[in-house]
Structure formats: C-alpha cells, structure tokens
C-alpha cells in the first residue's frame, strides 16, 4: 500500500464487495416478498388483523432486541479484530452466537405455541405469511452460523486472521438483523 492515502480518511468497502452484491440482491428479493405480503394484506384486511391479534408484540420486541445485541457484538468484534485484539474479538463473536441461539430458541418456542393453539402454516393467509417470512429468515440465520463459524476460525488461528473475511461474515450477520427489523414491523406492528 502506498502512503499517499494516509492523510485523507480512506474510504473502503467493509469486507468483500462481493458480499455487498449478495446483500443488495437478497435485499431486493425480500423487498418483493414484503410488498406481496402488504398487498395481500390490504386485500383481506379483516382476516389479517384478526389473526395478527394472536401474535404477542412483546415476543417480537424481545426477538428484535436479542438480534440487535448480537449485531452490536459482531460489530465490536470487527473493531477489536482491526485493532489486533483477537481474543476480545473472539469473545464478542461468542456473544453474537449466544444471542443468535437465543433468537432461534425463542422463535421455535413462539412457533410451537402458535401451532399448539391451532395456528399452523395452513391455518389462514396471515399465518402462512407469518411462517413463510419468519421461516425463510430463520433459514438465513442458520446459514449465518456458518459465516460466524468461518469468522471464528479466522480469528482463532494466527496463521489466518483475514480482516476482510471477518468483515464479510459480519456483513452477512447484520443483514439478517436488518431484515428482521423489517419483518418485525410488518408482522407485529403494522395494522
């Protein structure tokens, strides 16, 4: 690297630019799912409102907070890794995984509760969308654990420690977080 860039604040893409292509493309796919949901919802508003009343807003808020904590700690992990504090970075990464796990457990618990009350995937259109959106998000989260695993592997061994890979994995994890923020608004809050 040349020293000419040192004076001004360097503007760099966090992680692989390739991951950002994924974030934007998958983001658009989710936008289209969301738009379809909103349209279907307005066409049979009463049914959606009645079924939505069976969801617990507090659970949604709890899920959002949990994912925000995990996102926060993975951001701190990236910062720590950049400073060379790899043990701290790894510790933050374990926190991320822990809260990701809490989210998974709480989601499964919420699903089990709804199914026990008789609101399964095929109960009505609102619940189809509910399971579809939370389910596809859940799947992204499971894949996120693979990315976190890759990041942990990078941080654990002095032979690797590619900052770019760690940032790439963090970018994926934040994407799951912000997609959930939208899903939360659409499933739990909007009327």
């Amino acid at each position, binding site marked *: 690297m040349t020293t000419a860039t040192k004076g001004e604040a360097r503007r760099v893409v966090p992680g692989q630019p390739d991951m950002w292509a994924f974030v934007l493309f998958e983001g658009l796919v989710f936008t289209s799912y969301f738009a379809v949901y909103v349209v279907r919802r307005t066409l049979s508003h009463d049914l959606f409102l009645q079924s939505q009343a069976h969801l617990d807003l507090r659970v949604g808020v709890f899920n959002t907070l949990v994912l925000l904590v995990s996102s926060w700690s993975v951001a701190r992990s990236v910062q720590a890794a950049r400073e060379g504090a790899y043990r701290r970075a790894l510790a933050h990464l374990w926190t991320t995984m822990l809260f990701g796990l809490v989210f998974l457990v709480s989601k499964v618990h919420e699903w089990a509760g709804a199914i026990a009350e008789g609101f*399964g*995937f*095929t109960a009505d259109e609102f619940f189809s969308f509910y399971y579809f959106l939370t389910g596809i998000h859940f799947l992204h989260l499971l894949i996120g654990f693979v990315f976190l695993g890759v990041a942990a592997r990078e941080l654990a061994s002095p*032979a690797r420690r590619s900052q770019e890979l760690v940032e790439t994995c963090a970018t994926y994890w934040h994407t799951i977080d912000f997609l959930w923020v939208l899903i939360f608004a659409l499933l739990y809050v909007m009327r």
Partner: protein
Amino acid sequence: MRRADGELILLWTLPVVGVVWLAAFLLFPGFVRPMSPTMSAEEVAAFYRDPENLPRIRYSMIVFNWFAVGLIPILALIVLQIRRMAHRTPIFSYAIIACAAGGPTIFLMANLFWLTAAFRPERDPQHIQLFNDLAWVTFSSQVGFLVAQSVILALAIYLDRQQRPVFPRWVAHFNLVVAVLMLPAAFVGLAMEGPFAWDGLLSFWVRNAAIGLWIVVMGVVLARAIAWERAEETPGP
C-alpha cells in the same frame, strides 16, 4: 499449509444429511409403522386424509425432496478414493459415477408420487391407492443401482492389491453383505404379506437398516482414508 480443496467440507455434509434423513424418516407416518400393501383403497385414502398425518406426510416428503441428492458428494469422494487404488483402468470409479445418480433418481420419483398423492387427498380412493402403490413399489423394488454400487465397490477393494490398500479388506466383505441384504426388496410385487411384502421384515426393515448402516460405515472408513491420504501428502520437515 493444508490444501483448501474442500474435501473435508464435503465429508462433513454426511452427518448433516444423515441427521436430516433420519428426522424426515421418523416424521413420515408411513415409515414409522410402514403402510401395509393389504390396506384397502378406503384405508389408504383415510391415511392421507387424516389431519394428523397429512402435514407430516407433506413436510417429511418435502424435506426428502430437498435432501434426496444430499449424499452424491460423498459418493464423489468415494470415487476419488477408488481412483487411488491400484487398478489398471478407471473402470470402477466410472461405474460408481454411473450408479451415483440411480439411487437418488428412483427415490425422487417415489417422493413425487407420495407428494402428489398428498396434494389432493380428497380424490377418488382408487386413484390415491394407485399413486401410493407407485410410490411404495418405486421406493422398495428399485434396488439395482444400490446393489451394483456395493458390488462394484467390493470388487474394486478386492482388486486393490498394494502395500497399504485404500480401504481395508473387511469393507469389501461388508459391501457384499449389504448388497445381499438389499436384494429381497426387488420382489415386493410378489407378496402382500410376510417378510417380502413392502412393509415386511426383509423388504423394509432389513433393507433400510442395511442402507443406514452402509452410510455410517462408509462415512467412517471414507473419513479415515481421506485423513490418511492427507497425512501422506503433507511434506515432511
């Protein structure tokens, strides 16, 4: 520095796919207590119409649809090990490649029959029974590629004469036993009851246990062969 060729990643998909298959197997209500060929059309239709069964049939078969080809990467790894054996021609490795698509294709066909039967269970029971029969017979009787795979693998191991063979010799004996255990299932069309029927001891329990055991045993010996290959290739100090 270890090779970054991804073989270990492919190897580690085996336990994942294995767990998914087992879960789907237990979820499908027609496997835990296998459906009998003697069930009348009305009974078969009732099986699909039962609100307890229907979601389990659909979800388990959707999972099987996703993961039916999940073990092909493992077969590709076995092919690579056969290529390391002391043979004069690649005939055995090519034969395994040719077999690899057979098992999953047959299973996918059976899977489509089951899922289509479950799509509209309100249809004429005679028609439901037809698709159910198509599914079970496709699933049970088409063991040809699986048997061939085991026999070819056994032959390849027997002919692998070198100081330290890629797979130990008992793996060849094991594969022959598995091949024999899978054979009776080909005759499910002949028996409505007893061990040869598609829900019988030989055609269902023994055959599927043999397949399960084959996956576990081959997974372990494959992992050992790959580990040994890698240790051999790592240059000394």
